[in-house]
Every structure is written in C-alpha cells, then in structure tokens.
C-alpha cells in the first residue's frame, strides 16, 4: 500500500467508525485533492462529509475549530503546507489555546493535514517545510509520518485525539509503498521508531529524510560504520528518551530534517541531545536541513538546497573519522 492510500484508508475507516468525522478543504471531493489522496471518499461519504470549501484556508480552518468545539471531529486539508501561513491565527491563537482559555470547557478535536517537502519543482511558495512553526506552540501536536504503516496508525491516533493535531505529509512520498496490516491499529504519539539499529552513529530523521538517512546508512555500511536511524514520528510530543538513549549508545549524532535549520526541528533535537547526552558525545551534534534560501524552481538549483544521502553520508563519515 502507498503512503497516500494509507492516509486515505485511515480517514475512510475513521469516517465509517465515527459519524462526527468529516473532511473539509479545497478540491477534495470530485478531485480527491490535487494529489488524488482522497480519491473516492466523496462517493462513499457524500459531499457533506467530504466538503469542498471556498478557497479560504483561514475560513475553513476557523469553521473546523468551531465545528470541533460542538463535538464534530473535522479534518482540515491544506493543499500545500506553504498556505498554512494563512491559518496561523486559527491554529495558534485559537485551536491551540481554546481548551486552556475556556477553563477546560471547550475542546478542539481537529486534525489539520498539510503537505511539506521540496523536490517537486514547485518553487519557493509550494515547497516549504513549515512544521517547526507549529511545534513551537504549546497546545499543538505535530506528526510527520515516514512510512505507509506509520501514516495510517498515526492518522487514526490524530483523529481520535481530543486536541488539535497537525499532520504533515511529504508530497513526494505519496507513492512510497510499504506493508500495512488489515486490522485496526493506532500508533501512540511521542514514541520514536528505530528504523535501523546501529552502534557507531545515530541519525535522527523526520518525514522523507528518514529514507535519506537509511540510504546514507547503507552507504556507511561499506565503510564499516554502523548507523542507527531513528524517526521521532511526532516532533511534538517528542520521544526524548529514545533519542537520548541512542545518542548515549553511539556517542555521535546527526539530525536531518527538511525544514530550515535555524530555530528549527534540528535545532530543538540537537539541544535535547546536548542536554541529555552531553557527556557521552564524542563530537558536537551535526544538523542538516534545507539551505537558508527560498527554494528555487530550477531542478539543479532546487536539488542543491535539500539534504541528500550523500550529504548525510559525508557528515557521518566526518563525525566518525
């Protein structure tokens, strides 16, 4: 099953299980989203539960917050994560805080789905990875699946969560295939997954960077360097324990994330490692993220801005050297 199909299946199963779940966003019904991830859902659930909205991200996110407060469980679809800039007031000042500000009287059980990631030749306004913005805010949980299995289990957890969850899917990973069991399962938030066991270096990676890290680990194998690859799966809540334990074991750490390094996910994780495993480290934690430029369209230019397995490999070799 592909990652896109896993997301769709999770949504369909939750919609069958719970009539309060509905999806809203742009071009999601007949078009099934521009990435075709939701193809067919409108046929099963109708246009009321797969609701094509006016083109207003702030508008339909606000509607979702309101509907969530009255007991619905909306899933909001933000076509490109870049457009999440438009929903920040609803997400940051409303969804994240309503439960707290209402003295626990109102809750906002909603999921905001958005895409992230470059390499699709979509240029500066359709390629960004802005998940760190959300992870910065108390009250929001931030999920980044890297496999179809994780995508399905995490999506179910997100929908069943009584609080707002932001779920980022890498648009280049929709076709990624992997095994997904037929039976119902969920994956708890805040539990990292060790995607590859190793002893010499820990590579902590998110979303599409997990595959990059795994490919780098394979290259490192030829140089007798055994890399452990860990996917936190949720950057908030963050499974600090697993990350720190691995860092203590291997004593060298690289953090790879497609967002910008500055004040980003790699910065946060690096500081978690520095605080938790400082005295076990052989070298400073190395961060690898997108270059600090708007993402260009031109394929050779764009490719230069995004972390690659070669880059991770090179950094790991240098750290182990």
């Amino acid at each position, binding site marked *: 099953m592909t990652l896109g199909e896993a997301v769709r299946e999770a949504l369909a199963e939750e919609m069958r299980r719970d*009539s309060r779940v509905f999806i809203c966003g*742009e*071009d999601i*019904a*007949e*078009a*099934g989203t*521009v990435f075709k991830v939701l193809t067919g859902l409108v046929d099963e659930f*109708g*246009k*009321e*539960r797969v*609701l*094509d*909205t*006016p*083109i*207003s*991200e*702030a*508008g339909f996110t606000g509607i979702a917050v309101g509907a969530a407060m009255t007991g619905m469980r909306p899933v909001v679809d933000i076509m490109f994560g*870049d*457009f999440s*800039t*438009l929903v920040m007031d609803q997400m940051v000042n409303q969804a994240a805080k309503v439960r707290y500000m209402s003295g626990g009287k109102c809750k906002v059980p909603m999921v905001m789905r958005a895409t992230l990631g470059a390499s699709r*030749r*979509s*240029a*500066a*306004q*359709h390629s960004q990875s802005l998940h760190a913005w959300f992870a910065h805010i108390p009250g929001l949980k931030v999920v980044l699946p890297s496999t179809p299995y994780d995508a399905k289990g995490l999506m179910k957890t997100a929908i069943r969560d009584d609080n707002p969850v932001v779920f980022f899917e890498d648009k280049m990973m929709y076709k990624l295939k992997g095994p997904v069991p037929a039976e119902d399962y969920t994956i708890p938030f805040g539990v990292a997954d060790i995607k590859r066991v190793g002893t010499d270096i820990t590579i902590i990676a998110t979303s599409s960077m997990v595959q990059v890290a795994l490919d780098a680990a394979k290259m490192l194998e030829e140089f007798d360097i055994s890399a452990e690859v860990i996917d936190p799966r949720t950057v908030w809540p963050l499974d600090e324990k697993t990350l720190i334990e691995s860092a203590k074991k291997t004593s060298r750490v690289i953090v790879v994330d497609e967002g910008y390094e500055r004040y980003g996910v790699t910065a946060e994780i690096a500081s978690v490692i520095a605080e938790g495993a400082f005295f076990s480290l052989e070298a400073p934690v190395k961060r690898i993220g997108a*270059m*600090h*430029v*708007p993402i*260009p*369209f*031109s*394929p*050779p*230019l764009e490719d*230069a*801005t995004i972390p690659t397995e070669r880059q991770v490999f090179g950094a790991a070799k240098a750290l182990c050297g």
Partner: protein
Amino acid sequence: MATKLHIPHAPFRPGDKPDFSNIKLPKAGELRRPPTRIHANETRDLSFSMIRVLDGDHRAVGEWDPHLDAETLRQGLRHMLLNRVFDDRMYKMQRQGKISFYMRATGEEAVAVAQCMALRPGDMLFPSYRQQGLLIVRGIRLVDMMCQCLSNSRDNLQGRQLPVLYSFKDVNFFTLSGNLGTQFPQAVGWAMAAEYKGTSDVAVSWIGEGSSAEADFHYGLTFASVYRAPVVLNVVNNQWAISTYQNVAGGDQNPFAARAIGYGIPGLRVDGNDFLAVFAATSWAAERARQGAGPTLIELYTYRAAPHSTSDDPGRYRPLDEWQYWPLGDPIDRLKKHMIARGEWSEEQHAELEKELTDHVLASWKEAESYGTLNEGPWPPVSAMFEDVYKDVPPHLIKQKRELLE
C-alpha cells in the same frame, strides 16, 4: 447525515450534457453608461446585469460601444490569437516533457488583452497567473517568457520561480505569486502610494472568482473603499476554480460584481468574452480612478476552457465538452466576426494571421531552446541562488555558497 445545509453542486458532471439556458443574458447594448463619478448604489443594474456590446449579428451596439478604430481591433485580435497559439504550443511542450508546468488562458484571452489595451503603460499590473495576455500587449518577447518557462540560462528569474509565474518590472508587471490573492491588497497599496506621490497612474489587479473567498480580496476592497484608492479591481469569473464551480465561491447568490456595492464601490459586470465590452468597462474604471473618483470592481464573466493547469485532469469533475455549450462563445471568434461584419477583416486574412503567429511562436521556441532546455541546460548557475538580494552578502550565505560549490 441529512442536514439543512446547502451544499453547492456543479451543474454538470462528467457524462452530463451541459445546458446553460438558465443563465440570463441581457441583450447587448441594453445597459446605460453612466458618468464615472457615481456612487456605488447607482451601479446596481450594472453589477447585477451584464455589460455587453456585441450583439447576435456581430455588431457593436449601445452606450458602452468604445468605438475603436479598425487598427485597434486588428491589434486586439492579433494579441488574443497570439496568446492562444502561444499557450497551445507551451501546452504541447509540457506534454512532451520539455517544460514541467503550464497554465493556459484559453477562452478568456479578451480579459487580459482588452483590459491592458484600455490602460496606459504607466499603470501597474497586479495579475494572477492567467493574464499572460498583459505581457503580450506590453510587448514582452515570447522568447523571454519561454526562457522563464524553460528555466534556462536566459531565464530572467534565474531559475527561481515556477513556469508562468512571471515578473517583468520594466513593463510594470508585478511579480506573480503562487499563493492566491495577495496581489489584491498590494495593488491598493500601490495605488495609494501613486496618489501620495502625485502621479496619475492607476493600479489594476486580477483575482479568480474562486480566490475571491480569500481574505485578501476583502482586504483589497475595504482599503480601496476607505481611502478611495485609484485602483481597478477585477474578478475573473471563469466558472471554475480547479475542480470547484463558481457556486462554491458564493456565485449562485449574487454576482461577484455586486459585492462591490456593500463596500461602497461601483461594480460592473461584463461579458468577459466580448472584447469591446471589456475594453469599454476597463476604460470607464481607469478613467474614474485617474480622476480621483475612486476604485471600481469589475466582474469579467467568462469560461476557463483549458484544464486548470497541466497538472489538472478536468475529466474528473466536468464534461470535457462543456465549453462548447458556453453561451458567451469564444472571444477570438466573436471579435473576428465583428471585424468581418464591419468589412475590416476576412477569413483569408484570419487564416494568414494564424499562420504568421504560429510560425512566430515556433521560431521563438527554437530561439528560446537555443539558450538552454529544462532537461539538458544550460541552466542558471547554482550560485544564482545567492544573488539579487544582498549588496553585501552576509556570512551565512557566503558559507553556504562555499559549501555548495565545493
């Protein structure tokens, strides 16, 4: 889940036979052309009905006839036809993998072409991505547009922007945004600044009817109204926003032009496939802005005949032949017939023009490719990423650049 909510449906879906007989079209020439200093409330008829000049016999009738001379008409026809031939060529090139993305303006060429011809060169354009006709009118060479789409060594944006998201400051064409709607308040800000600087230039912006749901549309109208900015704000109602019909943006309730009245701005609703009506309405609004009488909202009623973009598959959501049933026809065909009816044009001349423009587009493509192809280059150098912003490049970028070039 049965509710009392109204969920808009597109009138026709794949497999249906379109029938637009429910669309009420006033007769050409029926509406009055009021003086430009007018209060919003006096534009009810103009915003709820539709300004049309070309009648069923291809004659120009009524007060809105701009009385254009034959040479202007020929130019308009030429620009629109070039727009279409260019679009079709680029679409084909995308299908062959020579460019990665393209958006055509098929069926709505009169919007950009007639409007731009009704403006002055100093007027600043804040378009959306479907007004490439503006660049054609303002004399940008096709080769330069093609190089941008190819992202080659001659790309004026150095490989930074998506194909068709042009930027040509030299001809007062603002940098296109991939995020919808942002141009609307920006145009108002530009117009306010123009007034502040004491120029007589006006700002003109375009937004799709779908994007009119974005807050920026409403910000634009609010600020234009409050400060009576010299701006012409256009909603291109081409019926479709990717897969959603204009009723998803609220178009079934009242016309988009009528929204202007609530903001205290005159609204004009125009047959967007009628070159003369589009020209006349735009001249009226631009004149009004230049006089300091304030903003105008124009709705251009048209139809998006092409897929949304080369990534779109309209077979999923509309009958593929829907355009054939569109009651306002094809803007190129309508202008052509008008010119023939006036004795200023012939089928032979038209065929000749089409051939000439096709050859021109082919030659331009050849030239553009000689500066580099998308797949084989030469491309803009990787170091171009670090240019055009800083006079003194800051250390973090110098470091990145060094690491990259190593």
